[in-house]
């Protein structure tokens, strides 16, 4: 946890709270609880399943096309000769090969990140992050979660609360040994950890797969990908092999607001393509978050809910009332305040009318 916001009316927003905050929360509310609904004892995350699968290739994985390698992973091409590779290593090769002409996000920059060419996200081949920390206030089905905030982003949201992540010089290179050492320490101290989570994974997918390929065998925590919905099909395709839960931010309900507030074109088309991929082409669990923005109910949240109703039976909904003006939000009159309670209530009420599955009230059926 590194930020607390105190608002004019005395409201407080605790951003990314960790266990060190529990005494503070108990001081404020003696009935405070950390609620969790984990997947149960026998759960094996996809990345561990992928590590236990093997395929055979006669040449180095890097000598094959991404399409061929994905067909091998999907079992469409059956190879029985050559060297044995863990399936996760094949996936890693696909991710790294994709960097030669990067199209992980909707910008489709096509730069060669291997040569350290940088596109909109500002990242080359290296992946950067803050140190992982234990988040105690996520949705119960993934809570508590070991969260790693990754650097670099394709979006430039005016109200971004983590805008310091855009500049990777403030961050650390993602180091598997250090990461798993952190995780191990946290797990020793907290038996109840429910998930590991990466925020902003789209632009750093190759680094995450590299990390997971070195996960200790005893780690059985589901992997949560907390992504903006401006990823490409290739991002969702590759990430689907390792992702147990997609936690996706549905920020807008039209392209104009997306362009003005986040600087991205064709947002809705990318959101639709991404949701089609995660909802209909694989079996991952999908939670959609809607951050209620002030004065964007009619233009964004209402149409977004209508749009999401196409995926009613595949998604769980999580409505966030935590927006606080940050970064450049004060330059925008509408964004320079907290959302009104009636705006939050309207979004919640409409989601009820559409009969979305509320991730807070249907926890038991999630896993």
């Amino acid at each position, binding site marked *: 946890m590194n930020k607390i*916001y*105190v608002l004019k009316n*005395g409201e407080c927003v605790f951003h990314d709270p960790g266990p060190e905050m529990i005494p503070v929360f108990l*001081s404020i509310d003696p009935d405070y*609880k950390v609620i969790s609904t984990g997947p149960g004892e026998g759960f094996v995350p996809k990345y561990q399943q992928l590590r236990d699968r093997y395929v055979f290739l006669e040449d180095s994985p890097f000598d094959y096309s991404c399409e061929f390698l994905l067909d091998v992973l999907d079992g469409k091409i059956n190879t029985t000769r050559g060297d044995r590779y863990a399936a996760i290593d094949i996936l890693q090769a696909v991710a790294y090969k994709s960097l030669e002409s990067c199209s992980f996000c909707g910008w489709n920059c096509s730069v060669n990140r291997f040569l350290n060419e940088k596109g909109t996200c500002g990242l080359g081949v290296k992946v950067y992050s803050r140190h992982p920390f234990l988040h105690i*206030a996520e949705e119960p089905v993934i809570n508590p979660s070991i969260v790693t905030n990754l650097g670099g982003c394709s979006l430039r949201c005016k109200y971004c609360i983590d805008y310091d992540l855009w500049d990777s010089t403030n961050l650390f290179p993602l180091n598997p040994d250090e990461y798993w050492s952190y995780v191990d320490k946290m797990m020793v101290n907290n038996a109840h950890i429910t998930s590991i989570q990466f925020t902003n994974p789209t632009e750093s997918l190759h680094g995450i797969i590299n990390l997971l390929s070195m996960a200790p065998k005893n780690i059985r925590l589901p992997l949560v990908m*907390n992504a903006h919905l401006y990823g490409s099909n290739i991002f969702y395709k590759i990430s689907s092999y390792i992702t147990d839960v997609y936690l996706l931010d549905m920020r807008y309900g039209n392209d104009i607001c997306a362009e003005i507030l986040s600087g991205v074109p064709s947002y809705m088309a990318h959101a639709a393509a991404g949701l089609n991929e995660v909802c209909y082409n694989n079996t991952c669990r999908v939670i959609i978050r809607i951050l209620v923005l002030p004065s964007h109910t009619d233009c964004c949240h209402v149409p977004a809910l209508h749009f999401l109703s196409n995926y009613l039976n595949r998604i769980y909904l999580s409505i966030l009332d*935590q927006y606080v003006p940050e970064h450049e939000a*004060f330059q925008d009159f509408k964004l320079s305040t907290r959302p009104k309670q009636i705006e939050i209530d309207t979004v919640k009420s409409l989601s009820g009318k559409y009969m979305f599955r509320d991730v807070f009230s249907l926890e038991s059926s999630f896993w």
Partner: protein
Amino acid sequence: MSRAIVVQPGIFERFVKKMRATVSSIKNAGFPQLGIHEITPFPSDKLNAVDVLTYNDIAVPLFVFDNLMISADGIPINGAIRSVAAADQGVSVNNDVKPAIKIEVEIEADNIVTKNNEKAEKDHAMAKDVIISSLKNNNIIVESADNIGTGVTRITLDNLSHKNDIKIPEYVFVKR
């Protein structure tokens, strides 16, 4: 973007109530000057509102916060602080208040808070002070508390205060 915890403003009202009771009890025990200045004791390094609430102790309150003073009615007084003197001891438990403290506060009262914003400003200041005090009491280091826009204070915590070896106590954990 991760989820955050939102604490509604009303939660702080009980702190104020307790603070006012504290002022009242000290005043009744022979400190009429407190009434003159009508200053609500807000938490300091040594006194935490939460502790007062929890243990029913009354410690020596400090009345000055970043040059912000708040009246017993909760209205911030924007004034220059001329002098503050307080004995460093004078603790009372339960209703047995000992007259061991001497407080001299001289201010130039210049209340510039408009009437419409009075409550909001009061709540803001109250919440900020309670939170900062509670953080300090729990050894969480506050790096900065900046006003980042109209009525929004961002409290940034020192990265070092985040430790990955802290346990979630069993009594707060609910497994469903």
